[in-house]
């Protein structure tokens, strides 16, 4: 069992990394499409080798460290960010159980009874990676970017955890697998919780520092934000972890709101358990891809928020709306009982 879990953990890590690498290419392709140009097309057919070239370049770049920086924290910052990005996926159910040699294995690292709380706990540690990195560089732009990032992330975390409460009220469980299993077929949570879904989606943009909330790395004011002083793979860790976070938040949204790996009629196809698990995984992956496209679509369509607008949206609009959503959900559930 432990061997299977180790393989699964490595597979998930590899999957996140490959998806993150190719998200950079797809993002540039989509940006090209939106701006009526081609996007990267030199390295390999359709630019397919571009992410590899970028990764190798980052590996071979000279490591730079400002002489005023705090050396230990300077290295800890990106490492922590990357570590946190790789840990969030532990409670996501990637598919139904598979059978190997008559033994049943679960395609989920850990089915713990605090699944959602685990995700929130890990995501909130992510603030430290950015804050430590920005502070340790001893650069004014990096510090401003880091302070903005942490302030923004903790503000939107409130609305995020409030919007999930309604899901917990409906399902009566914090375990991700229970929540997925209650959304069989087309019985997805999004039909019951459209407001909660929209709040969660907006907060996911803010938590992953994606445009229109990319103020921490807003290049027109802050050069590069918290990673101004970083180079080589340390910079790569910051950039990759953003895409991994995007992938994982897409997976979380698909699991909580879009029924995870469930899709109408695929359980009627009469597939063997392993083929069924594979098809279900593809369904989940398609949903994640859909969210990934939304992330990119919004980034290349909307302008960036101003900082006071960002804070006003988070505190004065999303939090009261989320509380209202809790009240409405409570009344509706109790009236239907």
């Amino acid at each position, binding site marked *: 069992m*432990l061997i299977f*879990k*180790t393989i699964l*953990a490595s597979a998930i*890590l590899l999957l996140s990394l490959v998806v993150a690498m190719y998200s950079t290419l797809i993002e540039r392709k989509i940006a090209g499409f939106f701006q009526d140009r081609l996007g990267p097309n030199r390295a390999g057919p359709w630019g397919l080798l571009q992410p590899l070239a970028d990764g190798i370049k980052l*590996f*071979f*770049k*000279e490591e730079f460290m*400002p002489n*005023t920086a705090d050396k230990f924290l300077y*290295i800890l910052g990106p*490492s922590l960010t*990357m*570590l946190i990005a*790789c*840990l969030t*996926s*532990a*409670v996501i159910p990637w598919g139904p159980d598979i059978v190997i040699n008559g033994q049943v294995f679960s395609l989920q*690292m*850990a*089915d*713990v*009874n605090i699944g959602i709380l685990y995700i929130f706990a890990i995501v909130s540690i992510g603030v430290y990676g950015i804050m430590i990195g920005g*502070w340790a*560089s*001893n*650069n*004014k*732009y990096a510090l*401003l970017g880091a*302070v903005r990032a*942490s302030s923004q992330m*903790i*503000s939107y975390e*409130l609305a995020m*955890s*409030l919007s999930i*409460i309604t899901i*917990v*009220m409906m399902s*009566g*469980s914090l375990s991700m697998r229970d929540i997925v299993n209650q959304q069989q077929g087309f019985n997805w949570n999004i039909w019951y919780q459209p407001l909660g879904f929209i709040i969660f989606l907006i907060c996911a943009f803010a938590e992953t520092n994606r445009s229109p909330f990319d103020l921490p790395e807003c290049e027109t004011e802050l*050069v590069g934000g918290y990673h*101004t*002083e970083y180079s*080589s*793979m*340390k910079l790569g*860790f910051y950039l990759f972890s953003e895409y991994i976070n995007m992938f994982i938040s897409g997976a979380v949204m698909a699991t909580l709101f879009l029924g995870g790996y469930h899709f109408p009629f695929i359980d009627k196809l009469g597939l063997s358990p392993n083929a069924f698990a594979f098809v279900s995984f593809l369904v989940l992956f398609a949903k994640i891809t859909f969210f990934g496209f939304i992330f990119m679509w919004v980034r290349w369509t909307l302008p960036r928020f101003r900082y*006071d607008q960002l*804070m*006003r949206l988070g*505190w*004065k609009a999303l*939090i009261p709306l989320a509380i209202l959503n809790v009240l409405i959900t409570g009344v509706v*559930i*109790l009236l239907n*009982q």
Partner: protein
Amino acid sequence: MERTFIPSDYIPIVVQSVVALGFVVITMVLTHFIGGKRKKIHTLRKEENFECGIEVRGNARFPFSVKYFLIAILFVLFDVEIIFFYPWAINFKDFGWNGFLEMLLFLFFLLFGFYYIYKKGALNWEE
């Protein structure tokens, strides 16, 4: 479909942590050794902090706006209160109307505090 959860459910999380930590450490060490080999060149100008090409004045250990600190304090307060919602939400259907009304009372205090900080202008960034 009552399922039991046991502490050993958490072992895979430890496995995943070890795998992720291994990946991060190996990559960091690898990039340190195969990265550019011009480390012998240490000059003051090169290792200065980036400041858009002008001379660096002071360092980044300066006080920043107190608003950020205020947000952090408010976050701690509200996050603790939101965590109280979770046990209630799990047992929501068992509690029924009674639990809902009790939660309304808690929510009233929460929103009262929210209204107070709102009126005090703690959430205004303009001034």
